[in-house]
C-alpha cells in the first residue's frame, strides 16, 4: 500500500501502538477476589501504512483520540512502536546503527501544540535554541550567539530578545521559539502536532505562512497533524484521515475535497464550518464516537455508517488503492 518511489522520505508499514491501561488498586483487589476484571488495552494505532514523499506536506486529520499524536510521536522517534516498521530514507529504524539512529533523530523534529509546556521556563531563549546545535556540533561555543540570532531571524523573532525567558513572550512568539529550536539542528522533516491550535486567528495566519516559507527555503517535508480541516486543506498536498486508530483514506488534497470516498470522510467534511456556508440548517449527527477501549468489530465506522452491510460488522476493510494516488478502506469499493 502507498506507492514507494525514490522520492519517498519516510514510510510506515503496518505500524501499531498499544497502550495497556493498568488496573488501579480497587481493580487489583477485585481481580484477586476472583472478578474477571482485566487490564485493558488501547489500540491507539492499529496497523497503519503510509508513505511521505520528500518535500511534501502530508496532513493528518481525525477526531480526538483517533491516534494522530501517537502516530506522529512514533514517526518522530519519541515513542516506540508495538509492531510494524518505519523506514526513513530507505533504512528501517529497526536496522539502523547507533549513528544512523542518532542522525535520523535529529533530522526528524517535532513541534508541539503547547509552546509553553515544551519550553523550559528557566532557560533563556538563546540556550533553548542553541543547546542542541552546540551539543551536536552544528555550531561552536564561540559562534553560538550569532548562530542563534540567525535562526531567530529566520522564524521572525527579534534576536534582541535572545536573553529573555519564555514567559516574556506572547503565545505566537513562543510557538516561533519552538519552531526555531527544531530548525536549529537542520532537520529535513518536521512533525507538527496541532502546532497552531492554541493561537489566535491572526497569529495562526502568521505561523502558517512561516511554515510555508520555511518549506520553500529549507526544502522541508512535513507531517502536519491538525483537527482543523480548513488549515490542513490550505497547506497539505495530500491528506490522511484516521478513525479509531486506523487510516480510512489517503488522497491528494483537491481530490479529497472534490470527491471524498470513505463514508467517514464524507461525514467529517460535511461538518466543517466554512465562511461561505451561511445560515446552515444543522442536522443531528447519528451515533457517537465509540470508545477506543472497545472499538466496534469489522469496520470501526459501521455503527455510524449509513451504508453499512452485514459484512461491515464482521470484516475489516483493507486500505487499498481506488485510483492512482488514492487509497480508501471501505467495502463499498469492492462492488465498483
Amino acid at each position, binding site marked *: 500500500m502507498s506507492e514507494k518511489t525514490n522520492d519517498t522520505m519516510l514510510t510506515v508499514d503496518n505500524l501499531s501502538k498499544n497502550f495497556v491501561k493498568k488496573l488501579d488498586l480497587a481493580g487489583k483487589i477485585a481481580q484477586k477476589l476472583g472478578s474477571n476484571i482485566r487490564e485493558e488495552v488501547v489500540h491507539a494505532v492499529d496497523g497503519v501504512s503510509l508513505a511521505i514523499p520528500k518535500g511534501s506536506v502530508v496532513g493528518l486529520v481525525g*477526531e*480526538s483520540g483517533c491516534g494522530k499524536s501517537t502516530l506522529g510521536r512514533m514517526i518522530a522517534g519519541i515513542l516506540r512502536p508495538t509492531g510494524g516498521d518505519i523506514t526513513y530514507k530507505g533504512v528501517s529504524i529497526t536496522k539502523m546503527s547507533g549513528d544512523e539512529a542518532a542522525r535520523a533523530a535529529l533530522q526528524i523534529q517535532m513541534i508541539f501544540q503547547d509552546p509553553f509546556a515544551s519550553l523550559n521556563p528557566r532557560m533563556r531563549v538563546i540556550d533553548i535554541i542553541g543547546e542542541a546545535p552546540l551539543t551536536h556540533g552544528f555550531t561552536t561555543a564561540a559562534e553560538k550567539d550569532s548562530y542563534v540570532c540567525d535562526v531567530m531571524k529566520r522564524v521572525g523573532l527579534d534576536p534582541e530578545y535572545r536573553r529573555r525567558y519564555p514567559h516574556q513572550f*506572547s503565545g*505566537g512568539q513562543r510557538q516561533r521559539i519552538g519552531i526555531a529550536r527544531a530548525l536549529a539542528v537542520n532537520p529535513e522533516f518536521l512533525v507538527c502536532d496541532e502546532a497552531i491550535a492554541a493561537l*489566535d*486567528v*491572526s*497569529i*495562526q*495566519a*502568521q505561523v*502558517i*505562512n512561516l511554515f*510555508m*516559507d520555511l518549506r520553500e527555503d529549507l526544502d522541508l517535508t512535513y507531517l502536519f497533524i491538525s*483537527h482543523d*480541516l*480548513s*488549515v490542513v*486543506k*490550505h*497547506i497539505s498536498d495530500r491528506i490522511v484521515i484516521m478513525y479509531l486508530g486506523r487510516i480510512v483514506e489517503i488522497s491528494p*488534497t*483537491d481530490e479529497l475535497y472534490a470527491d471524498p470516498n470513505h463514508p467517514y470522510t464524507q*461525514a*467529517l467534511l460535511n*461538518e*466543517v*464550518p*466554512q*465562511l*461561505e*456556508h*451561511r*445560515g*446552515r*440548517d*444543522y*442536522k*443531528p*449527527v447519528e451515533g*457517537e*464516537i465509540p470508545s477506543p477501549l472497545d472499538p466496534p468489530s469489522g469496520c470501526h465506522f459501521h455503527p455510524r455508517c449509513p451504508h453499512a452491510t452485514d459484512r461491515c460488522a464482521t470484516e475489516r476493510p483493507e486500505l487499498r488503492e481506488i485510483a492512482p494516488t488514492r487509497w480508501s478502506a471501505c467495502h463499498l469499493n469492492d462492488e465498483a
Partner: protein
Amino acid sequence: MSVKDTSPTLEVRNLQTHFFTKAGDAKAVDGVSFSVGKGEIMGLVGESGSGKSVTGFSIIGLVDPPGNVVGGEVLYNGKNLVGLPDEQMRQLRGNRIAMIFQDPMMTLNPVLRVDTQMVETILAHDPSVSKQDALARSRDALGRVGIPAPDERLRSYPHQFSGGMRQRVAIAIALLNKPDLIIADEPTTALDVTIQGQILYEAQKLCRETGTSMIWITHDLAVVAGLADSICVMYGGRVVEQGLINDVLDHPVHPYTRGLLGSVPGANSRGTRLYQIPGMAPSLLNLPQGCAFQARCPRADEACLVEPQITEPIAGRGVRCCHPHLNAEEEIGA
C-alpha cells in the same frame, strides 16, 4: 446598532467593565452596545483578550473584583439588570438567562449526581413539576445533546464523563428551562466537529422553536457564519464592526474585520500565503492613544490618534473607524 429593532430581548448600551489591578486599570469592556432580538443568534467574535467573556459575564452579573461594571445599561426585556439585587439576578440566571461556559465545571457541581442537578434546575424554575416528570425531561435533554444511554448517565457524577461529554451535560442543563436568552462562551471550542455540529443543531433548534435569543461567543468566524443572524466584532474591549451576518462577512468595512476574514485559510486559495495582520493585539494596560488597532492597520494616519466613535456609514452597520473601506471594489488587505 440593533439588527431587529422591534423590542429586543436584550439591549446592551454603552457597557463599561473595568478591572482595577495593581498594574493599572484595564478597560476590558469599554463602551459596548448591541441588541439581540427574539429568536436571534448574535455572534460575538474577536481574538483572545478582546473582552468577549467579560461582556458575557457583565450581562449576567458575574463580574468579580477587581472587576466592576462602571457604566452603561443591560436591558433585558426593557429592564436594566445593572445594579439589580443579587437575589433577583440569581433568579434570572437559573431561569430566564443561561450562560454556557468554556469550562463546563463552571456549571456542574462535582459532588452531585447529574440527575440531582438537572431535577433541581427544573424545580427551581417551576416547583409544581413532579419529580417523575422532571427526571423524564432531564433524560430527554441528555439524549438531545447526543449522550448515549441517558438513563445510566443520569446516575453518574460529572467526573465520570469525558471532557466533551461534560460540556454536553452542561449545555443540556442550560437548555432545560428553555431560557429567553443564552450566552454561550466558546462552548464547542474543545469539541470535535461532529459533536460541535450536534450542539449547533440543538442550539439552533431551540432558538427557532422557542424564540430563545442567543449570543454565541467564539473566535471561529466559520462557526458564526453558519449559525448567526448578526455579528459583533470586538477588538481591545470595543466593538469595531457590527451588522447582519451576510453584510459584514461579504462586505467588511473595518480594517480589522477585513484582516481577520482575510487570514482565515478557507478564504485563501490552497498553498498561497495567507493574508496576515502584522503584529499582535496590544495589552489593555498599554493602549495607544486613539484607535487601538493603529499599530497593525494599513490605513492608520494622524486622524486615528483621536479615538474613533461608532458611526453608521452604511444602513444597519456600525463601524468604529476613521477610514472605513466603503468602496466595495477594494481588495482585502488593501
